[in-house]
């Protein structure tokens, strides 16, 4: 359990949070029409006759949208309903040409599922926690009103009208802003793994309706909740909760009651304000859409959906710590984003092949390189470098040279820097730029013999027990070798010669 508590004037309060996340389904065409879904087109450039609700137009379900929602359901271990149905949600608004939204109230496509948010001590999440998901249904998005185009009129852009959304409804299982944030991040990660939503919150591909209520610690009854609509970032969701919690506590402690209502979040102030109360709530007159037959999925379709699922975040993390022997930290960092693990896995495969070793043997080296060394160099170079030059093959070549002791860690960075800047091959850089360690025992022995001869007193002291002087000899040797000697070889020869 979260230990998130808010101290009020009359005692301690706890918080109950449920989230409805609207995720735009990744698909070329809209849910019931062939119009494009690409972001950023000219207003009303992507509107079919169906989207504009011309007389006599009929919706036809886009199977790809259904498939993506089913795959998402499978990724949260949910019940997939082989029989589901579309309902109409009726209300009038200028961004809703049909006068109804096609949604799924009574028989959603996806039923009960769950996801796990990971323990995060710093964020006040002491242990892994299961968040239950009540359902996922698919529905049409609405269009967009533009109020800044004309002094007295509003304009309508129907490009987004009819785009497929998944509404992912959690149970009220979250008890702190941090848990809500972790839930959205985890959900986003799963959606991106599955490829069913790009998770781009800035472009509105993911938005959350945040349901919040408060109650005194120890109370078992839920308090009256408010729903804050269309919050479009993890940070804003957490802010909206914090503000709403404090507001509700203040209302109750001032002797008032929380009104069940829909609220809006203002990102500029981090506060919420009332949009409409329950009394003003629409009567949506839901009923089964008579233009559409029930959606019936066969086993072959479900099998294809399941077979097309990638390895999911939890499984991947478990494999990284288990099979690959990575640290918890590395595993978490590497699996958080699709791009990160994709780069890592490509490089891991290349490196293992280059070294002729199993992946597990090189995984930690590759993880450290991917998470800290390489990003460090890229960041330091900034615009001077071109990340496109950093192919997996080139990086694997660097790691191979390092593994073989041909180059030092510092040299690896220097070589990578040149790779980024100039797109040259690492082996060639190492050769031509003199970025190689000398492992030639002859040259090193020669240098050490000279040093021993010139420092007879120190040799005597060392041999009589002053072990610390070993570092002095290493330093002298490296200096004589201009820093390019392989330290392991230097150590070995020194030990042999000093006795």
């Amino acid at each position, binding site marked *: 359990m979260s230990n998130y508590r808010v101290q009020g004037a009359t005692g301690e309060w706890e918080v109950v949070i449920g989230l409805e996340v609207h995720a735009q389904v990744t698909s070329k065409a809209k849910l019931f029409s062939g119009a494009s879904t690409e972001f950023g087109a000219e207003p009303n450039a992507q509107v079919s006759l169906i989207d504009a609700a011309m*007389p*006599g137009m*009929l919706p036809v379900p886009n199977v790809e949208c259904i498939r993506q929602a089913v795959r998402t359901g499978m990724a949260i271990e949910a019940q997939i309903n082989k029989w589901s149905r579309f309902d109409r949600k009726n209300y*009038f608004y200028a961004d809703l040409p*049909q*006068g109804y939204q096609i949604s799924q109230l009574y028989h959603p496509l996806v039923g009960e599922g769950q996801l796990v948010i990971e323990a995060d001590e710093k964020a006040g999440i002491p242990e892994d926690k299961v968040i239950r998901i009540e359902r996922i249904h698919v529905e049409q998005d609405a269009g967009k009103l533009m109020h800044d185009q004309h002094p007295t009129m509003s304009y*309508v852009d129907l490009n987004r009208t009819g785009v497929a959304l998944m509404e992912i409804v959690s149970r009220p299982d979250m008890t702190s802003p941090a848990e809500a944030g972790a839930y959205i991040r985890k959900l986003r990660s799963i959606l991106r793994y599955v490829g069913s939503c790009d998770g781009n919150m800035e472009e509105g591909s993911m938005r959350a309706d945040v349901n919040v209520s408060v109650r005194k610690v120890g109370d078992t009854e839920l308090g009256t909740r408010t729903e804050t609509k269309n919050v479009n970032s993890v940070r804003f969701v957490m802010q909206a909760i914090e503000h709403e919690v404090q507001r509700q506590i203040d209302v109750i402690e001032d002797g008032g009651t929380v009104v069940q209502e829909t609220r809006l979040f203002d990102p500029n102030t981090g506060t919420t304000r009332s949009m409409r109360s329950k009394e003003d709530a629409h009567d949506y007159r839901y*009923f089964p859409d008579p*233009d559409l*037959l029930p959606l019936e999925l066969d086993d072959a379709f479900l099998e294809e959906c399941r077979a097309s699922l990638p390895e999911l975040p939890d499984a991947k993390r478990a494999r990284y710590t288990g099979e690959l022997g990575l640290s918890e930290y590395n595993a978490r960092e590497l699996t958080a984003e699709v791009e990160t693990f994709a780069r890592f896995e490509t490089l891991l495969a290349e490196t293992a092949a280059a070294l002729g070793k199993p992946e597990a043997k090189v995984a930690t080296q590759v993880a450290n390189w991917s998470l800290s060394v390489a990003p460090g160099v890229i960041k330091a170079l900034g615009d001077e470098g071109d990340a496109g030059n950093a192919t997996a093959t080139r990086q694997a070549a660097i790691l191979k040279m390092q593994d073989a002791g041909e180059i030092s860690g510092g040299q690896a960075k220097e070589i990578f820097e040149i790779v980024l800047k100039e797109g040259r091959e690492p082996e060639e850089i190492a050769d031509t730029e003199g970025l190689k360690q000398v492992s030639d025992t002859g040259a090193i022995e020669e240098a050490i013999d000279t040093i021993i001869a010139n420092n007879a007193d120190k040799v005597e002291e060392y041999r009589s027990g002053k072990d610390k002087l070993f570092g002095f000899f290493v330093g002298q040797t490296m200096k004589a070798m201009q820093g390019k000697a392989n330290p392991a070889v230097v150590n070995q020869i020194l030990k042999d010669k000093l006795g």
Partner: protein
Amino acid sequence: MTDFTQLGIKAIRDGVANGDFTAVEVAEAFNAAVADAAELNAFIVTTPDYALEAAKKVDADRAAGKQLGSMAGVPIGMKDLFATRGVQTSAASHILEGFKPEYESTVSQKLWDAGAGMLGKLNLDQFAMGSSNETSYFGNVANPWKARGSNATLAPGGSSGGSSAAVAARIAPAATGTDTGGSIRQPAAFTGITGIKPTYGRCSRWGIVAFASSLDQAGPMARSVEDCAIMLEAMSGFDPKDSTSLDMDVPAWAASLDANLKGKTVGIPKEYRMDGTDEEILKSWDDGIAWLKDAGADVVEVSLPHTKYALPAYYIVAPAEASSNLARYDGVRYGLRDLPDGAGLQDMYAATRAAGFGDEVKRRILIGTYVLSAGFYDAYYTQAMKVRTLIQKDFEAAFEQCDVILAPTTPTAAFALGENVDDPLAMYLNDVFAVPASLAGLPAMSVPAGLNKDGLPLGLQLIGPAFDEQAVLNAGLAIEQRAGFTAKPEKWW
């Protein structure tokens, strides 16, 4: 010289194909008849050029030795519920007055592809809501028939009242209709013509202004069973743009017509013997039974026990769907917009819809909105859907015992315009025999059975199992052959 306006689909098509006359001659004859019949008000818009263009193409194709379509050279009337590219598609409403779609409905396109031409857009009850064609924004349609000894103008039935009047008056050899709860069959019965509503899903609904989506079906209205079969074939077929379209091949109904009913069983539903049904209707029903027996059929009584709940259920389901389907007429994107000075969005909606919809449409939107409202949904809509399932099961059980059902089409012959206009319930009762087949999605047809003592036509209805239009058409043909219905309205317009 042939009076082309007396010819039906088959006669025109074959005559054109044989070179007995040209399609242009036929189109010109009907264009003239249409122009001469303004008094009937059957058309909202006439499109003589469209009819001529199509005819010229057919004549040219024939001259070039090309294969001609099944409707080649036949000019028809198009109910103004079908979207026609570039031609006003109004659903007989003010709210869509002036609306010219940039698209063509699937059914009308199929007809043009089969070689038919368009005489114009036919009047109807506004948004197909009505049984007398008195709810049209563009005025009443007059039934070409008049009762003996009376000069009262009669209703042509509805909602396909322009279609029925035009075909009965011989100003069109055939017309499209749509049937949601009897809108093809009742007007066909009122005007002495033949009309069939196929199985739900046979004809694509794409491009037809929606009234009640789960009930709406297009179908032909013509002057013979064979003409209906030919035209229905041209109108039918799977359409991927309509999710409720039947993915089945279209049978060769016309070629398979067979009036010999030996080995077939006709069911007579006992619950259709209702109080208040006109004696003459009952007598024509008995005539129908005798004719079908004469054609070789066995006749059995069947039971459709939930019949009495059909009309109430229909008047919940259809308005519920309509209230939602008509929400798109909001003044934002097309059609009428009434924007009072200083008005906001809600004011615009209210003003536009108040001005744009007629009373009957408003009544049904209100009923539909009410029955779907929180707290009433289960009591009305859910209950009505249960009734609908029971009615479907009634028919399934009945078709265990028979191949086709025979019943009256309407409880009365055509009534006078204005007679029922203030009594919506009396008006709704007109469809009491038609609605059950609609709720069950079954093919059903009305064929003329004779004239009553006032000289007005009466129709008999045939209802078949799902997908078995052939059974309906064959039984209809058997009746047609025996009824010998050759009467036609005297021209007064």
